[in-house]
């Protein structure tokens, strides 16, 4: 499903060149729930941004299905982000003046789904992640962190992606809500046959995934 080969990302800062991702290679199978662990500044989030086509690699290949997204250009990248992947962010990143339902409908609007279909699917997804009808019309500001993250997961699933990338999805949650969100992601991976790659610094969380990659100073250290 996901095949990363010799991926390198360097940044130039004040005359220096910093290698955030240093020749990383790994594969994740379809429907697998994998995690990447590492300390702060180890390059986890940069790696996730590269896999999600939010940033472009300096060199290397990111092959998803038959496409090498490292070679894609603007329009194709937008299409890739729109239909092939879903993102879950640590800070939820919901649009504050849209309701939970509208937030979930947003990626479907970008994908060109008609309003009736996107409302129907958004409601179904929110039901799946445990957001009740009365909370579906609430704006993020009136929801708890756990609820917002569940809405964020529903949004990530909106366009039925094959790969979900989650950046510290439980980082802003208490242990109870963190466990609930993790269980939800785990369940989705199994039921929807969706590949999930979670970046976390929480070794407990990582220990419960199918596979864990450890990133140290941008390099992949070992596999579990």
């Amino acid at each position, binding site marked *: 499903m996901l095949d990363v080969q010799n991926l390198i990302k360097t940044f130039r800062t004040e005359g220096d060149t910093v290698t955030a991702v240093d020749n990383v290679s790994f594969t994740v199978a379809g429907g697998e729930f994998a995690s990447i662990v590492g300390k702060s500044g180890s390059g986890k989030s940069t790696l996730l*941004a590269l896999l999600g086509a*939010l940033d472009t690699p300096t060199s290397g290949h990111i092959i998803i299905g038959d496409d090498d997204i490292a070679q894609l250009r603007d329009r194709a990248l*937008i299409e890739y*982000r729109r239909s092939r992947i879903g993102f879950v962010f640590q*800070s939820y990143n919901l*649009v504050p003046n849209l309701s939970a339902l*509208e937030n979930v409908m947003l*990626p479907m*609007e970008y*994908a060109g789904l008609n309003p009736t279909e996107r409302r129907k699917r958004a409601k179904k997804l929110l039901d799946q992640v445990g957001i009740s009808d009365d909370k579906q019309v609430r704006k993020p500001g009136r929801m708890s962190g756990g609820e917002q993250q569940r809405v964020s997961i529903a949004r990530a699933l909106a366009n039925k992606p094959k790969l979900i990338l989650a950046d510290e999805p439980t980082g802003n949650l208490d242990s109870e809500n963190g466990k609930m969100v993790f269980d939800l992601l785990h369940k989705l991976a199994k039921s929807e046959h969706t590949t999930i790659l979670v970046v976390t610094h929480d070794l407990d969380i990582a220990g419960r995934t199918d596979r864990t990659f450890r990133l140290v100073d941008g390099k992949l250290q070992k596999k579990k």
Partner: protein
Amino acid sequence: MNLFSRGVRNAFRNTIRTSSIVIILALSIGLTIAMLAARQAVTDKIASVKSSVGTTISISPAGFRGFEGGGTALTSAQLAKAAATAHITKVTQMLNDRLSANNTSLQSAIEAGVLGQRFGSSSGTDTVPQLPADTNTSSSTDTTVTTRSFTPPVTVTGANDLTGTAAFGGSTAKITSGSSIDASSNEDIALVGKALAAKNNLSVGSTFTAYGATITVKGIFDTGTTVGNGGVIVPLATLQRLSSQAGSVTSAVVTVDSLDNLSSTTTAIKTALGSAADVTNSQDLADQTVQPLESVKNISLFSLVGALVAGAVIILLTMMMIVRERRREIGVMKAIGASNVTIMAQFIVEALTLTVLGLILGTLVGVAAASPVTKTLVTNSSSSQTQSFGGAPGGSLPSTARPAGGPGLRTFGHANSQTLGNITASVGGGTLALGVVAALCIAIIGSAVPSFLISKIKPAEAMRSE
């Protein structure tokens, strides 16, 4: 919820900020609309004044100014030379004279009054009345007893053409009784002003004496003015003969075939007559009369551009601030599949929403402010113009613009300068349409830079922690 409704809703995310921006924009757009209306009103007024002056040139002997100035009368021969100039369609020649008690049976219909007592007499050492400084506080010195009795003379005008207004002091005359006379004749016939006829019990067919001749009244006219209605009109040749001024002319009004040829014809006449005559054309006078309005037109244009730029800068800065605030949100939108165009469109809708709200409120401001602003601009401009010319009497007409002769132009200048202030600006459909275009320009200019900034934001912004 689609892109459009999201953009509209985003405009109200911060109601205090939105209200402030809309109010400032409304003032900017309101000023733009008011200035558009002012400019339109002033342009219309200028066109109206210019179109009302016609295509006439006034000729008078050099130094001659009614009965106050000096100079030597022109001759019909001189005017014939001028009349040979191209583009002239008509030359109305006039000879003015005054009838007093010793050469006419007519009694003047005009009372001397204080002004007549002061200015109307000839030399003498008598005590003359003082003009009252304040009618409410008049004292014995204000009404000094005069030892002189002045009777205004009867003005008689000889004209070779009565079809225009020139022979009637620039006023439109209406024959109220009898018929007009043949101005090219040499008969002892006359048209008599309404007031003069009443004073002397004259009617059509009556006679009066002047210069020792008996003149028959053929018609009675009404010009609507006291001076005009107190006068006598006779054929030019008749007056030249009776007053022993054969071939003399004290003023002439030349009509040119088109406005385009007015200036060149004026120059040609000046060349033909040389220093013997003062030549003034109606357009020069109109240009001088509407000069304050031209200033208002320029002021309104600068203000219009200023208001427009201010509005655009307000929206520009606001949208730049909003884009900066929402960098992360824009990154998220890109991360979940939005294209640059989609996001830009949403922000443009947001800018348009603010602008349309500003436009609605601004239209009300503009409609309310258009007329007062225009009046203030015109009044201030006219009064400053008048002061700069030494406070000429008769409204804003500069003293230098006063024609040397020619009753038609004198009347025109005076009347039009007085009506310059009577200007009303209204916001019509055209002005509103321009206002809408201006608002759209504001929104487009204001959205252009933020749109560029949006395109530069990377989706990776979504990954930034707060």
